[in-house]
């Protein structure tokens, strides 16, 4: 008996919508098995993971707060992956964006701050993330070094840079030696949108980015060139697409969005820098991008789902004593299933009982 893949002629819309849904269903089923193996009631655990976060206003706000960075980063990554450019260092670009923006808030703390500060911080965050992302882009286009490895190595460098800053030069002098910066003043924090929660201006900004990105991806020449480069690099070259410039472009864009997500997270949600300020948003966003079929609107839906798993994981840890790493297992499984189901779009899978002649 063996597995045989046969090329499909055309893929229907129904199939394209069904594939991510099937992946989610399979991931839920696998999660239930894992919960049972860990000695928890699978139904109780699934409820804590996937329904509890959506059951009250506080939970919904938290989902939006966690989805914001995931959606922003994954929209940028979707452009990269569409172009066949493998930026997997979004976590580092997120952190450097947070550092660049926070630098303005800390430098002006207790001094003249005005309404100019927040926009300047957001711009600095986007620029910082973008500049950090251009390092692997430069190494790729100038020297041909694999962007997969260089962008990932830079994540560790960014984490250590953050660690050094909050323990050294940027540490809050009045913070009892805790590794954290001063709490940002109101002029440097994003306004809240609702009482009794953490929902802030960052979420509408992310929604706006999704709309603009969806337009760019489907309705502009640049969006077309990006898809062409990824799907048919030879055809792109004949059509006069400059692969180097496009590589720079998608790296700069995804770095800027990751950096923006970083500064929004710091100035809207955390209000100070501390080590470990990201629970791996940059890596989870890779899963979001694929689950969202590398499409900005899809990333929005997928980002909300993955945000639920973050909060559900915390719920399950507190209520059922399930290890927090179980969330990563579910996220990894989800990406496996997404990729496997995508094969169903391109191929018909058949089991053959005997080897045909």
């Amino acid at each position, binding site marked *: 008996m063996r*597995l*045989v*893949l046969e*090329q499909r002629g055309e893929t229907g819309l129904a199939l394209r919508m069904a594939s991510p849904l099937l992946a989610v269903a399979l991931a839920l089923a696998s999660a239930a098995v*894992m919960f049972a193996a*860990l000695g928890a009631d699978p139904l109780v655990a699934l409820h804590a993971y996937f329904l509890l976060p959506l059951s009250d206003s506080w939970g919904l706000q938290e989902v939006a707060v966690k989805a914001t960075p995931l959606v922003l980063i994954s929209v940028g990554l979707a452009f990269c*992956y569409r172009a066949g450019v*493998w930026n*997997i260092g979004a976590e580092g670009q997120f952190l450097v964006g947070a550092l660049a923006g926070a630098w303005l808030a800390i430098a002006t703390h207790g001094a003249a701050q005005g309404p100019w500060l927040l926009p300047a911080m957001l711009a600095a965050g986007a620029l910082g993330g973008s500049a950090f992302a251009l390092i692997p882009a430069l*190494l790729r286009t100038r*020297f*041909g*070094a*694999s962007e*997969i*490895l*260089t962008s*990932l*190595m*830079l994540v*560790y*460098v960014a984490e*250590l*840079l953050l*660690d*050094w800053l909050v*323990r*050294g030069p940027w540490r809050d002098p009045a913070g009892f030696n805790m590794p954290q910066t001063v709490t940002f003043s109101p002029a440097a924090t994003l306004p809240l949108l609702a009482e009794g929660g953490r929902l802030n201006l960052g979420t509408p900004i992310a929604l706006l980015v999704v709309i603009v990105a969806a337009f760019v991806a489907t309705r502009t020449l640049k969006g077309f060139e990006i898809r062409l480069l990824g799907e048919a690099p030879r055809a792109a070259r004949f059509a006069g697409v400059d692969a180097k410039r496009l590589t720079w472009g998608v790296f700069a864009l995804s770095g800027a969005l990751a950096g923006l997500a970083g500064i929004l997270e710091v100035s809207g949600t955390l209000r100070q820098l501390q080590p470990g300020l990201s629970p791996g948003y940059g*890596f989870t966003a*890779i*899963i979001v991008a*694929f689950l969202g079929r590398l499409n900005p609107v899809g990333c929005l839906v997928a980002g909300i789902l993955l945000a639920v798993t973050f909060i559900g994981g915390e719920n399950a840890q507190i209520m059922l004593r399930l*290890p*927090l*790493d*179980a*969330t*990563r*297992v*579910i*996220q*990894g*499984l989800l*990406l*496996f299933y997404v*990729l*496997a189901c*995508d*094969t169903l779009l*391109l*191929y018909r*899978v058949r089991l053959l009982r005997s080897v*045909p002649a």
Partner: protein
Amino acid sequence: MTLIEAILLTVITASTPLLIAAIGELIAERAGVLNLGVEGMMIMGAAAGIAAAITTGSSAAGVAAAILAGMALAAIFGLLVLGLATNQVAAGLALAIFGLGLSGVLGAPFVGVPRAGIGKIEVPFLSDIPFLGPLLFRQDPFVYASFALVAGVAWFLGRTRAGLVLRACGENAAAAHALGYKVLRIRFLALLFGGACAGLAGAYLSLVLTPFWTSGMTSGRGWIALAIVVFASWMSWRAVAGAYLFGGVTILQLHAQGAGVPIPPQAMAALPYLVTILALVLIMQARGGGSTAPAGLGTPFVPDR
């Protein structure tokens, strides 16, 4: 024991897991499959290794469990990229995330449980040679195994028919298929070998280097092993140079921190990662733009009957 001797000994222990993982990935890539999930397979090896060693009380059982765990993860990956022809980069990332998570779940009951490491093997008489003796003939079994692996892989790839077929699958899968070789089966076996090596390297971390379990203890070594394969231009003996270069940098920064060099410890800790980037750039520069990677690396192959 002199200081230089002590430093060289620690360089060997830091380099061995890198070398073992890299040589496994080298075989997989020579067969044309890019498995970015080395980090995940390695840390699953570390977790399964210490879990089995503590539960059974036997280091050998720990090593066996680590190898099996690495192979199991490689098999999942193989099913995806070979059976279902998915994108190898994305599936590799999924494997890394999955392995990091699952190892945390599996290792949770064993956090902080101490256990005696694996002892060293002393070669009689030879280990008494001054300076070289302790370095070459008083090591733990993993160090000998790493060099045996390199020699074995070099011989297999360069001198055997099976090695030639494996390389053919990596260079031109369609041609190998046309000659009647089972490309997918060969690639799957190569992946399993890579998984076994990554698991073994993980066992070294949790059973020898730091004989206890902490979540995320591979700290990027799997990714550095991937860089070593590129640095080695996919040649087995050069992987030794790569692994010892990176191992050396790791130890250098530890000693510099200990000696009180007035540089922030974080800057020193970033050194291995920065050196990896620099090495990748220099090796590409030295090749003058030409690529020595297997021609079919990363391209899915679907045999049409």
